[in-house]
């Protein structure tokens, strides 16, 4: 069983390190995106506001600007780093346009208009008045790497990541079983003892966040389980993972399961309320949206309105749909409330039946995504993810150190050198790649064609450079030293680069109280400092053993 732990860990360690690091960045995806779009305005300390009052103001604006519209939408921000709402409406097609529309497939849909709405101040801006931001995939791009990888098809990526995740799940379970003295060892740390220290560190890191690791690997398998375990679905519904519509209308998908069973579909579908046909009903005043918002907040909690859609405002058949800002862990299963737009009565269809297994699946997915997490818990997610990176890194280094001692005297075997090179290239190369992703964001011209793609290319090019260094520079300890210093410098200089290229740097963001932007720069400094300490440790060991024919590697680092 110990054998199982060692080898499963080694085979997939590098991919998992990549998955863990990019996935961990995903917990701050929206914050990272804000930093990567420095053109966006500084977010002064957000004034608290009442959603109900904001909805009232939005209704007044829509009444004034879009009295003849066929549909209104009020969309609160789902983005933690963005407070503006969107107000939009669709005007009915112009009389002449109707014939043209029926003749060709080009439906007159371009009659939608939108405004940016500040829910606190209550004023609106034209989208054209907002500063144009540079093209970037931002934090979402990093987050997507953790299951979509890059340069390969999504389907292959899902299978590769799933395979590695399953082996990690095995490595964790067999690690626990192997480790009879797990709690005694947890309190054991023997620093400065080479292999012993690395083993202790691996144990401490692994056990500290063990519940998180178990949760994150198991729930990670659940997202695409139909791709990994297609047999049951084949038997039950006669379909495989390649269901039309690319998986989203899949019987196992928690978000769109209702079309497979009659009992679930009974409530009627969303498209029914979203008909594009203009209303023929007589005029009737629209009810007060603010009081409906108050009712929705009473059911869902404050700030839980994710969207409001008004169909046929000002007509007798007006319908108002409130959409729940779903954070995944809410007890309330109702995702929408449908109101009669004239009387204000709740005319929602009965909610879908949702059994225990669906709830289990929803909770697993919610725990993985952590959308419900407030600032404190979000940092805890982030730190747990970093501990995951540390667990994998210490495990991989431990593998080389154990074998390094056996290889003393003899030349390095090919497989040993391969593992060593992969360790340096990934463990130090990926952090450099992430830093390069941010550097590219500041250095590539803002108006450059395909600049988002080049941000990714920069990430992988930086990683490739470290791989090359790991191959060329001998002994491995020197390669480690160079690589770690480069990573440290890349992170430490990032706030400086930010100051040179933008006016969103610490000297501006800290006085302005914009802690999302300031927090990013400060976190980069902390990463830089951490890697500098690691690099210093490598060097000090090198200095204490000058000229001796000691084996290279990080063996005696700690």
């Amino acid at each position, binding site marked *: 069983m110990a054998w199982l732990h060692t080898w499963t860990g080694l085979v997939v360690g590098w991919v998992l390190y990549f998955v863990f690091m990019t996935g961990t960045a995903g917990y701050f995806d929206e914050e990272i995106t804000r930093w990567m779009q420095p053109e966006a305005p500084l977010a002064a300390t957000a004034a608290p506001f009442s959603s109900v009052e904001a909805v009232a103001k939005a209704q007044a604006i829509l009444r004034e600007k879009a009295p003849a519209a066929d549909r209104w939408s009020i969309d609160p921000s789902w983005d933690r780093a963005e407070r503006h709402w969107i107000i939009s409406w669709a005007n009915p097609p112009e009389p002449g346009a109707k014939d043209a529309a029926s003749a060709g497939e080009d439906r007159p849909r371009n009659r939608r208009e939108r405004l940016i709405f500040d829910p606190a101040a209550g004023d609106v801006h034209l989208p054209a008045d907002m500063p144009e931001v540079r093209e970037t995939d931002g934090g979402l791009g990093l987050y997507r790497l953790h299951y979509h990888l890059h340069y390969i098809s999504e389907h292959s990526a899902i299978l590769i990541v799933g395979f590695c995740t399953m082996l990690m*799940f095995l490595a964790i379970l067999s690690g626990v*079983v192997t480790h009879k003295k797990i709690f005694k060892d947890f309190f054991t740390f023997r620093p400065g003892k080479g292999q012993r220290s690395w083993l202790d560190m691996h144990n401490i890191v692994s056990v500290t966040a063990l519940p998180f690791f178990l949760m994150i690997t*198991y729930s990670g398998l659940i997202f695409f389980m139909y791709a990994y*375990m297609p047999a049951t679905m084949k038997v*039950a519904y006669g379909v495989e993972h390649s269901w039309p519509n690319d998986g989203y209308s899949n019987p*196992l998908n928690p978000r769109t399961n209702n079309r497979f*069973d009659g009992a679930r579909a009974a409530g009627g579908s969303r498209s029914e309320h979203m008909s594009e046909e203009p209303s023929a009903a007589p005029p009737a005043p629209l009810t007060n949206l603010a009081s409906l918002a108050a009712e929705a907040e009473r059911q869902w909690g404050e700030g839980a309105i994710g969207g409001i859609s008004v169909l046929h405002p000002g007509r007798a058949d007006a319908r108002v749909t409130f959409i729940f800002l779903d954070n995944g862990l809410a007890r309330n299963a109702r995702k929408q409330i449908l109101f009669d737009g004239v009387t204000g009565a709740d005319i929602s269809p009965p909610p879908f039946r949702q059994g225990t297994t669906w709830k289990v699946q929803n909770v697993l997915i919610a725990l993985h995504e952590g959308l419900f997490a407030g600032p404190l818990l979000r940092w805890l997610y982030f730190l747990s993810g970093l501990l995951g990176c540390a667990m994998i890194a210490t495990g991989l280094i431990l593998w080389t150190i154990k074998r390094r001692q056996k290889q003393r005297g003899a030349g390095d075997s090919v497989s040993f050198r391969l593992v060593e090179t992969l360790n340096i290239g990934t463990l130090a190369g990926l952090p450099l790649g992430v830093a390069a992703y941010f550097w590219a964001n500041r250095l590539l011209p803002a108006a450059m064609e395909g600049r988002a793609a080049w941000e990714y290319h920069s990430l992988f090019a930086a990683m490739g450079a470290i791989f090359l260094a790991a191959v060329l520079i001998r002994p491995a300890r020197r390669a480690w030293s160079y690589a770690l210093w480069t990573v440290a410098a890349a992170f430490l200089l990032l706030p400086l680069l930010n100051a040179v290229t933008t006016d969103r740097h610490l000297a501006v963001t800290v006085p302005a109280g914009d802690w999302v932007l300031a927090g990013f720069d400060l976190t980069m400094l902390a990463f830089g400092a951490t890697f500098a300490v690691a690099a210093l440790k490598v060097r000090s060991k090198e200095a204490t053993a000058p000229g001796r024919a000691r084996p290279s590697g990080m063996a005696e680092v700690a």
Partner: protein
Amino acid sequence: MKADMQRRLAVTSRIIAGAVGGYALTSLIAIALLLVLQRLGMAKDEALLAPTLGSFVIYAVIVMTVFHARSATRAWLGLIGVSVPIALLVAILMQAGGGA
């Protein structure tokens, strides 16, 4: 040298038993659970979801058992010994209708 070769063969056999044999057995158990749960009156979508959610734990337990077994041969015998009755159960349930 011969012993080394034998050891390698045994390890390879065990890996295949765990990865491939274990996966097949997991799928079989999940299908059996699906059919049994449906028989017991659980709605089809839930009867599908429950064993699929559980399958990863089942797989992990099977692989660990395979690696814990005294020899690769015993691991294979165990896998086959468990698979046969479950396959029979699945065949009977699907024959009796109520399957797909």
